[in-house]
């Protein structure tokens, strides 16, 4: 059966000599895998339409339950500006990895599709000076949209003001609640008000005005570390793209 949908390429995996298995976030089927015949050949009719982050109108042949074959992919927005920028692409890869790791396949979510598309458009059109904050805002908003965002505004149990974030609980806990058997003795991260302020505004402000948020570098580092610990707890492993980001932004040896 031939069906059509819109999809954003999340990742591709080599298969056989010149074939690919493409993972899409689609508008009406959620995350799906599809098979593309020979896109790696230089004269392939797919061209660049199967490159990661490409938003395309796709035609699929085959049953939804099995691996459908991509018969056509027409680019709507290539998002090549994101791929062409090293930092943007790694940070976008982090968002993609979060989606693939936290969202089960085959569950339609039109709002999530529109939301992810909106984030990609926002990254594409933003200036370099606000990029670092923007990538963090994108992560926070994506986690919020899929229901995995940590709670930093008050104790997660009683609502009392608190600055101690417990990754095991996914929330800040006040001293009293932290002494209860489930949280007692568990590791926590002490955060400051600037982190909470930035985090709250990242969620509450419309994304198109979030570039007005001007966090200092310490706030960004602190919140980024907190999110990484939160994700590591959720997934029981570190995000590969986080490790990649750390490996490629490490200070390099000085030239001779």
């Amino acid at each position, binding site marked *: 059966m031939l069906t059509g949908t819109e999809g954003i390429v999340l*990742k591709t995996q080599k298969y*056989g*000599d010149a074939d690919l298995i493409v993972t899409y976030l689609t508008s009406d089927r959620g995350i799906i895998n599809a098979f593309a015949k020979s896109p790696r050949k*230089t*004269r392939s*009719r797919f*061209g*660049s*339409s199967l*490159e*990661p982050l490409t938003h395309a109108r796709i035609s699929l042949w085959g049953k939804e339950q099995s691996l459908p074959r991509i018969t056509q992919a027409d*680019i709507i927005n*290539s998002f*090549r500006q994101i*791929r*062409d920028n*090293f930092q943007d*692409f*790694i940070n976008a*890869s*982090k968002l*993609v*990895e979060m989606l*693939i790791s936290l969202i089960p396949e085959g569950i339609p979510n039109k709002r999530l599709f529109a939301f992810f598309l909106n984030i990609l458009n926002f990254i594409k059109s933003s200036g370099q000076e606000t990029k670092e904050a923007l990538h963090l805002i994108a992560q926070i908003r994506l986690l919020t949209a899929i229901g995995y965002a940590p709670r930093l505004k008050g104790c997660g149990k009683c609502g009392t003001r608190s600055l101690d974030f417990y990754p095991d609980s996914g929330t800040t806990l006040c001293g009293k609640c932290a002494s209860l058997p489930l949280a007692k003795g568990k590791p926590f991260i002490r955060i400051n008000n600037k982190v909470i302020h930035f985090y709250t505004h990242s969620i509450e402000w419309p994304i198109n005005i979030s570039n007005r948020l001007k966090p200092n570098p310490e706030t960004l580092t602190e919140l980024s570390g907190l999110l990484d610990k939160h994700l590591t707890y959720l997934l029981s492993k570190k995000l*590969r*793209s986080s*490790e*990649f*980001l750390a*490996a*490629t932004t490490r200070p*390099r040896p*000085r*030239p*001779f």
Partner: protein
Amino acid sequence: MSGSLVENLINELSRLPGIGRKTAQRLSFFIIGMPGEEAISMANAIIKIKEKARFCKNCFNITEDEVCSICRDPGRDRSKICVVEEPSNLIVIENARIFRGLYHVLLGSLSPIDGITPERLKINELTKRVKEDNVSEVIIATNPNTKGETTAQYISQLLKPLGVKITRIAYGLPIGGDIEFADEVTISKALEGRNEM
């Protein structure tokens, strides 16, 4: 007995990329029908390559010796290094007979989502060569896809402070193809990289 031998050969051949069970079966019967010495010569070629093939200590191309024939060739321009992802890419460029410099094989490409970090490729070895071997130009010939482009950008950022000229192979339309079938990204890249005539 003979059934299990044939079955075993089919199983082994179907492990090769692009070879399904049916093709493996066809190849198996072709091998059975081959003259004995030809089949043995083929088997020996596989044994020998597994015993003797290794990576060149300079460029990581596949070779039988410590240093590959390209690195040993005195007629090569040692000031230029062409960086490729895999030894198979090197063969294609070599077959074009236009590049007379040296190569550097990375043995893969960077991929954040797959956790392929620079430490897992031969990037540090490339930096060392550029620093020590008086290299004036590094031509990055990684694949024209996202992973290849990410790798190219990383290498470019890494080597630029060393004062070496860094170039990237051109993007564009394949020869023999029609513009009407090209996608917007390929066309944009082709226009951006246009040459004066």
